[in-house]
Each structure stands twice: as C-alpha cells, then as structure tokens.
C-alpha cells in the first residue's frame, strides 16, 4: 500500500540549529497516526513542512505520491490543517470564517451551507454562529479551526496538538469524529504530547527525538523494539526510547570531542 504521506531524509535548520536530521516517516490511508516527541523534537516543523508553511533544506516529501517540491499547490486540496497556536481572523463571525474557508478551497455553496450546519451542531456552536471570533474562548476557536479544516472533507487531516484547550466533552467528540473519518478511508495525522490519548486513539505512532525518527509502528511493535515488556504503556515505551536516543546522541558527541582532543 502506498503511503499518503512519505518523508524521505528530510533536513531542516533554523539559524544553524538543526531541527530535523534526516527524518523518515510514512503515514498510510485509513489510519490515525500520532507523531510523538519531547519539546523541540521537531514535530511542529515536520507538520509545517508537509503543509507547505516551511521549506525543508534537503529531502523529499510526498503527499499522495506527489513530490510537494515539484507540485507545491494542488496537493493542498487533499489536506486540512490545524496549527498548534490557532490564529483566526477575529473580525469575522464564525459562519463568515467557515464560508471563507470553504470558498478558498472551491467547495460548492451547497456543500458549504450543509457542512457549516453539521459542524456547528457537532461542536455545539449554535449560539455562536453569528458571533465574532474575537468573542470566542480558546477551546471554541480550536473547534472552529477544526471545522474549517474539514469544510472540504479532506483525505488527510493534519492537526498539531489538537486537544489542548478543548474540554473533555469536546475531546470525546473529536475522537469519535476521527474514528468516523478513518472508517471512510481518510487519514488523521496528529502531533501530541498527551501519551495516554495517543495510546487510545492512534493506530500507529512515530516517536521523534532531536529531529530523527527513533521508532514507529503500533504499540506492540514499539514494546518489542524497546524491550519494555507486553504490559508497558506508551508512556513507558516513549520514555525508554527517548532516553536511549538521548544516550546515543551524548555518546556520539563525547566521541566527537575525544577525537578532536586527540
């Protein structure tokens, strides 16, 4: 099966600081894929490169088999994206913003109307339909951003820390929504810090550390890989794998220093 997202040896640096160091990743259709990693591991950078908000220094990113460096626009029609820090046009009402999101993705008027109604009901935003985004709470803004990312019914939904700021009921609705989508053969690609949520929600995860893919697969694969035992939680696996990766980096740096000293 061809992956819907494929990253091959992707490198990215910011002012000399290496954020991604030859990252390899594969995400398949019909799965909820979780990107896990400690702060500064390169999760947000990875997602931003996939959606075209950042340019990589080196490597290949393919979405639905298309190299995004060669075809940087058309593939975006397949994608719905919600960033970690959601910034929305505060001068628009909720309804106006969703109309705007639909229009720029060339969704038909009829579908826009229908989907706005559906998401407003789903996220319990009926009373806020005509309110300015300025007046919404953080959680409500997050819901509106997710609705806008789904207005064109994309094949691939990419979300950076989607559960932050959302109440437990909202989180439950989201999880149900994601599960519904993968039943239809769509893909959900999330980056998250919430390991217990990832464990229950994701079919497969990748753990990245210092811009590299330390391990990927389902929980059982990761348990075997980390030799943590069958009953190990994702959190235990995550801690073990990231600690090992950190040790390798430290040892590598020590060897480098030693060779320079001699």
């Amino acid at each position, binding site marked *: 099966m061809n992956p819907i997202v494929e990253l091959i040896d992707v490198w990215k640096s910011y002012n000399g600081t290496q954020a991604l160091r030859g990252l390899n990743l594969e995400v398949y259709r019909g799965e909820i894929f979780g990107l896990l990693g400690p702060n500064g591991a390169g999760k947000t950078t990875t997602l931003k490169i996939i959606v075209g908000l950042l340019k990589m220094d080196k490597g290949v990113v393919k979405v639905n088999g298309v190299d995004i460096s060669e075809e*940087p626009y058309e593939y975006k029609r397949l994608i719905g994206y919600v960033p970690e820090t959601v910034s929305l046009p505060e001068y628009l009402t909720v309804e106006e913003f969703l109309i*705007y999101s639909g229009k720029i993705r060339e969704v038909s008027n009829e579908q826009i109307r229908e989907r706005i109604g559906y998401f407003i009901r789903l996220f319990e935003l009926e009373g806020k339909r005509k309110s300015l985004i300025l007046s919404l709470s953080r959680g409500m803004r997050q819901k509106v951003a997710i609705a806008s990312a789904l207005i064109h019914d994309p094949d691939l939904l990419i979300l950076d820390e989607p559960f932050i700021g959302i109440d437990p009921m909202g989180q439950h609705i989201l999880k149900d929504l994601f599960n519904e989508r993968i039943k239809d053969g769509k893909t959900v690609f999330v980056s998250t810090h919430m390991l217990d949520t990832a464990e229950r929600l994701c079919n497969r995860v990748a753990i990245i550390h210092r811009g590299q893919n330390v391990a990927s697969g389902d929980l059982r694969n990761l348990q075997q890989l980390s030799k943590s035992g069958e009953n190990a939680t994702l959190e235990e696996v995550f801690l073990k794998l990231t600690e090992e990766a950190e040790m390798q980096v430290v040892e590598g740096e020590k060897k480098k220093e030693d060779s320079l000293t001699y």
Partner: protein
Amino acid sequence: MRVNIILEVYKFKVKAFFGALRASKASLALLLVYTFGFIPSVVGFSMSITNAVRQGNANPELYAEFLTAIVSALILFVTLLTLRGYTVFEYEQNFIFTSPIQPREFLVASMFADFTASLIFVNPVFILYVIIVLSLNLEFHLALLMFLAILIFIFLLFFLKASLSLMKILYEGSLVNSIILTLAFIFLLPTLRLLIDFPLKFASLPYPSTFLAKILLNIIFNEEPQIFNLLGLIFYFSLGFLFFMFASGKNFFPLSRHTPFVSPFDTSMRMQTLKMRKSIKTFSRISLFFQLNLKSKSLLLFLMRKEIIRTMREGSLFAIILLYLIAALISISIRQASQTSSFFPLTLLVGIYSLIVPLMLVSNWRSSEFENLWIPLTSGVNIRTLVRSLLYDFVLISSAIPAVVMLILSIFSNNNPISSLILIISTSMIGCSVNLYVMMKFLGKKRRGTPALLIGWASLALSALLLAPIYLSIVVSVYLKLGDIVGNLLSIAMLIYSALIMKYFLGKMEKNMINIEI
C-alpha cells in the same frame, strides 16, 4: 497618604510605560522621529508669533479668540475621554489593587506617572516655549509665570480627567453622562468659532481656556498678566483639585475596567494585534451589517469583499474617511485664508494624503493578517488571485474615498477635477503596489523583526521616487497652463505608467507570497 507607597507605584508605572523604549532601538527611533518631525512646524509657528509681536501688527483680540479655541479643544478632548470611565491596566488590577494601597495614593501616583509620560508627547510645546522666551527676550519672572501657568493648566486637565472618569464608574447613570456631555458642549463652542462665525466672543467669557490664553498673550507681549486672569486660572485649578479630592476618596477599585496595556513605544506585532482587537470591538458594532456571504460570483470578488469587511471592522476605513475630511477642511480653510480660487493646494494636499493612506492600509493588514496567513497558504488557493484581491482592494479604498471628496469640492469650487483624480488614482496604484511589495519582502523569517515604522519609511521613499514623474508633470502642466488636449494626453500617459508599475509589482508579490514561511 503614604509618600513612599506613592513613589513606588509611580516608579513602577513609569518603568512599565517606558519599558519598550528601553528594550528596543526602533522605539527610540520612533520617539526621535516624533520629536524632530515637530521641530520645523514649532520653529515656523514660533517665528510667526515673534515676528508679529516685534512688528507690532498683531491683533491681540483675534489671538485671544484663536488661543482660547485651541485650549478649549484640548479640554473638550479630555472631557470626551472620560466617557469610557476610569480604566486601568490588567497588571494594575492584579498586582496593585490587591495590595493595601489606598485609592487616593494610587490616583496620585498615576497622575504623576501620566504627567511624566505626557512630557514626552508635549515636548514640542516646551520647545516652542523656550524659543519664544529666548527670541522675545522675556523677563525671567514672566518666563517663570508662563511656565507655571502651563503647568497649572496641565494639572487642571489631569484633575478633570481623573474626577470625571471616576464619577462615571462610581455613579453609573444618565446624570453623569449628561454632565460630561454638557461640559463637552460648552468646550466645543469656542472651537466651533474657528469654523463658523459666531457673533459671541468667547475670549470675553470666563472659560478656563480664556484665562490661560490671556495670561500667555500678556506675557508674550511682554506685559504683566492681569490679576483677574491669574485668579481665574487658580480658581479653576482649585475647583479641579477639590473635585479630585472628593472623587478620589471613594473606593473605585472593584468598579474599574481594565484595558490592554499598549505602550506607544512598543512596535511589536503582539502590541499591534492588541490595538487591532480594541478597534474590532469598537468598529464591528457599526459594520456588522455588511456580511461575508456566498453570493459573490467569483473568488476574486469574494476575497475583495472579505478585505473590505476587515478594513471596516478594524476601523481603517473610517480612519481614512476621517483623514480625508480633515484634509478637505484644511484645504477649504487655506483657500478661504488665501482668497484664491486655485485648486492646486487642495490637489497637492490630497495627493500627499494619498501617499500615506496605502502605507496605513498595508501596515494594518500586516498587523491583522500575518498570523492568519496560514489559512490561505495551506488551502491551495490560487496565490495570484489572493494577491490581486488584496492589491485591488487597497487601490479601491485609497482612491475611491479621496475621489469622492475631490468631486464634491470641485462641484462647490467650480473647478475641473480631472487632473486631481488622475493624481489620486496614480498615487494609489503606485503607493499600494510598492507598500504591499515592500511589506511582503519583510515577512520573510529573517526580516520579520524589522519594525513596521522602518518598513514604512522604505515604502514611502520608494513610492515617492516612482511618483516623482507624475507630480512633476502635474506641476509643469499647472504652471505652463497646457491646453486640454495635452493635459488629457498627459493624464492617459500617467495612468498607463501607474498601471505598468502596478503590474510589475504584482508579479513580484506573487513570488514573495509563495516564499513566506510561518
């Protein structure tokens, strides 16, 4: 009252206000630009005063009316400000109001902190004061008296502002509003005198502004100020002080409203966004009738509509309308004062404003939309359509409003508006293209930290350079009195030139937009 507490709060507030000034060199540049920007006008103004005094052809009565009107306008402005009630910053509510400080102690510290902050903004007044004192060779005691009169008046304004704002939140109701609005109306009358010829002479009425104006004029003419005027000013100052003592005795802490802390020296994007949020709250109330809906036939028109909605709800559109109304009023005053029928000063003034408006529109777009750019950039929308919608909107707004003003004025003055309209449209096309292009150039990751002010200067310089041939040709055609045929041909050439420049920058902008990294 505990002096040490007042001093601590005063120091804290001053540090908070000038914090951004200490942190950023750009803010310091902004302050220098502000101060130096006023020096030519201050010098010019002081020269006209000193020359009139020296030549002995000044009309003190007329001067008194004029100065009374200006000072009244200042009181009017302060009075209207009190309508929003006494506001504090969130940090004051959280950290100062939760300490055992007394309301009066906080108010006194605030007043002195506001006075310190205002010294920065009223520094042109002090420059004017020094020039007048030195050039007229005023006696020391008169110079000192003049200084004290100004100081007393400034504190009178502070007392008035604090007391009325406190009354507004302490006794919320229509009575306080009525009192404030009545006061505002009283102070509006002398100001109106500048525009409408009333039979009443306000300089002979006991306004606080009258007393100050007469004291200042007496001193400028090297005369001893009349005791009556001095007592009048002191009376109003005492009244203000008593009013302040009464209002500051009440516990207003639980009733005060907080506003976002926005330091005028902070040019960061975060601060601009805060300012923008404040504007949206105000202007969306009057512009929600114009909605973004599914009716637009093309994506370009839809995106243009969205941009117009943004400019309305953020207040930019109303600010521009106000700007041109002021331009029109100044032009009418100049025409009446110089008793000329020429349309040229008006054309030039509106032309200059048309150069500033694109900068204003583009700067507001940057503050408001930069953080939201991820939405179109990840949507796969045609970048060309996106850039075109922005540019066309800016050109439309920055040319339509002055064009309407110009057409109305030309009807009243019976002048041919064609060359003025061409100038406006050309300035708008070139100004908007250049400003948007330069702004997009500075949206790249490495250049994003550059303050909008400096980007603005770069844009203005480039726009002015590209507009020079147009202004030059208009000046030449006015002075050489070229015929209609040559004039029309010149207008067509100007429009083609502007359109070509716009097309060139449009292409460049598309490339820049694609490369924006967020």
